């Protein structure tokens, strides 16, 4: 398959290892990767903060860069960015775009996938030959869970990982409190939610808390680092890309692991 890889602005700039793992994973599965060089950001932060005019160029850019019909699927290691493309780009195009933009958006929306749903639904694989001999707990992230409805897909992928010790996260479906600019505008309420999430994460005794979204992991990982917890955060793609021949080596400090 010819796959367009969307790195997401956060992944490209702050968490490149998660995107690298995604690229390596897809290449290993035998697919051709296309990385449109002009890609930047999906505009999710703008829309979620109340700005819909400003991201019009971003929505248009995304539709143009990935609109190429030879790109069969657009894949990104982020549930919330995939959610933004599928649920918000249409709203922006409807309100501030023209007919061409609306058509372009509809075309890319239909072939946009978050990594785990692409692997399970489109490629039909759950065991991708990964090896990760550590105790792991999975946080499902709200937009993956309730906007994209990825359901059990990430867990099916994780269960197939060789030697993984996968432990259930209590109250897994509760939000970690990030919510983009919510964590800035309502920092204290956000921190209260984060504290409960961290209590549940550390209670599992897991070495790694994983998820399909670097933004939620930045939040949880940032908190775990501050309290000097023993649990690190790591993107789902990095676990899936770890193999016996090139295993992931857990770093010594929590924040390094988020990268």
């Amino acid at each position: 398959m010819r796959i367009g890889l969307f790195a997401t602005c956060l992944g490209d700039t702050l968490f490149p290892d998660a995107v690298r793992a995604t690229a390596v994973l897809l290449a290993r599965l035998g697919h051709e990767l296309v990385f449109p060089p002009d890609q930047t950001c999906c505009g999710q932060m703008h829309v979620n903060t109340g700005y819909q005019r400003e991201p019009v160029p971003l929505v248009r850019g995304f539709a143009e860069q990935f609109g190429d019909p030879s790109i069969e699927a657009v894949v990104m290691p982020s549930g919330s960015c995939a959610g933004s493309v599928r649920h918000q780009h249409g709203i922006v195009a409807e309100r501030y775009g023209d007919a061409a933009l609306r058509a372009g958006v509809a075309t890319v929306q239909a072939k946009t996938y978050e990594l785990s749903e692409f692997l399970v639904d489109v490629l039909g694989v759950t065991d991708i030959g990964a090896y990760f001999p550590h105790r792991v707990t999975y946080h499902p992230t709200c937009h993956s869970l309730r906007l994209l409805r990825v359901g059990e897909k990430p867990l099916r992928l994780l269960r197939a990982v060789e030697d993984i010790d996968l432990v259930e996260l209590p109250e897994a479906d509760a939000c970690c409190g990030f919510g983009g600019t919510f964590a800035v505008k309502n920092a204290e309420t956000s921190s209260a939610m984060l504290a409960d999430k961290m209590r549940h994460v550390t209670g599992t005794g897991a070495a790694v808390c994983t998820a399909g979204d670097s933004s939620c992991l930045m939040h949880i990982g940032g908190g775990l680092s501050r309290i000097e917890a023993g649990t690190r955060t790591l993107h789902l793609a990095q676990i899936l890309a770890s193999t016996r021949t090139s295993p992931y080596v857990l770093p010594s400090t929590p924040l390094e692991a988020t990268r």
Partner: protein
Amino acid sequence: MSTPTYLGMPALPPRSPYGTGNLRGDRTFPRAAHDELRNGQLRRNLGKATHTIRAKRLAVTGELPDWEALRDAGSAIKTDTMNRLPELLEQLEAKVTEAGGTVHWARDGAEANDIVTRLVQQTGSDEVIKVKSMATQEIGLNEHLADQGIKAHETDLAELIVQLADDKPSHILVPAIHRNRDEIREIFRAGIPGVDPELDSVPAHLAAAARAYLREKFLTTPVAVSGANFGIAETGTLSVVESEGNGRMCLTLPDTLITVMGIEKVLPRYADLEVFLQLLPRSSTGERMNPYTSLWTGVTPGDGPQNFHLVLLDNGRTAALADRIGRQALNCIRCSACLNVCPVYERAGGHAYGSTYPGPIGAVVTPQLAGMDVSADDPNSSLPYASTLCGACYDACPVKIDIPSLLVELRHQHTEATGRTAEKLAMKAAAAVMGRPGVYRAAQKAAGLGRVVAGRDGKISHLPPPFNGWSDSRDTPAPPKRSFRAWLASAEGASALRAAAEEGARTRTEADGPDEEEQ
């Protein structure tokens, strides 16, 4: 030929007037939450209560094979209702009048308060008993009646607790959810005349004390004021659902019954109750059916109240209806399922919203009824931002109100209405950078400079305002040396992807065996 009639200039319908009723707090959500979060007792009470109700709701909604179909039906009936609200309200008025009731129209809370006051004064009573009602809470009826020398007695147990403590409700269904039994005992000992000074905090004993106090009110007060869960246009029937029987007392014992109903509570047909009487109790209390469902149509000679008045309240509802996207919020049946699943409500509590309507639905209903003022610190303007958009509310809503999308819409309306703000400039700047790939790449390189402000451990522990709230409890990693795209363009990136492709091909070949190698 008819003479042309001048209809005036079209204008947006009015919101609930500023400074009236209980649809605006006295401080923004983050400020209010700041104080509420420090109340450990509140956090424990709320956490315990919401988790209990959550589990009950999931059990009784999960057992119905047609629960999703019921939600769809509820949503469709409500949407249809809003699409033809004027005709349904006129039909309701005609049917109630036909059955011996009197219908009054109130443009806003102040008008409704005046109407109710006048009606009570006409009976000669200076006391009323009340069924728990969101609409009368919204318009501040009790306070208005008190100003006119009329004492309103709340008869719902939790409302009574709130009233005796001179407190405000913090939940749609469980107004005293923020109180525990020990606090309630203290409130009763101080507030109920003649109560046993040895009263303990056993729930049954607390309920008995309230029962004894209320029974006397039920038997001696000639006027009752209620809200309504539903008003049936087809028959003129009003309905209240409740758990304690206090509503049944109020709706049947007094001579005069005055019902204040928000205009969005109308339903087209009697048969629609089939859907809503399943959706409401299961979503709100987690019960299969609520203990008391009272239905009444006008006046029945010799049975129940002989004077029935229905006050139809707008108070910003027509303004909400005029909003193509926002009108969905009027579909709310006040079950409070969204409050019980909301992680923000669970931490901050209902008082932080400053409105009769707290939680996720409150964050969309309140600004729609009372508006968002353009002044920077209008409490209502902060409400749409009091959510992580986690979507738990949408999943729980029995009439499928897409609350996260409504919150995003209200945020957009708010940013459109405000002038230049620092945030807007920052958002424009961010979009300008993101919209120009060359500038974006340069900015990415500049972000690498963040390594300078990071400590030796690669963490950024302190950030300037407005990000200091973030950095108070979270470390931020310093940007890495190399972006993903730089890695991809490097020789290392190219060889890593080549190696991965080769490794994958080798593994597949081994797995498939030599026979299929040619495929």
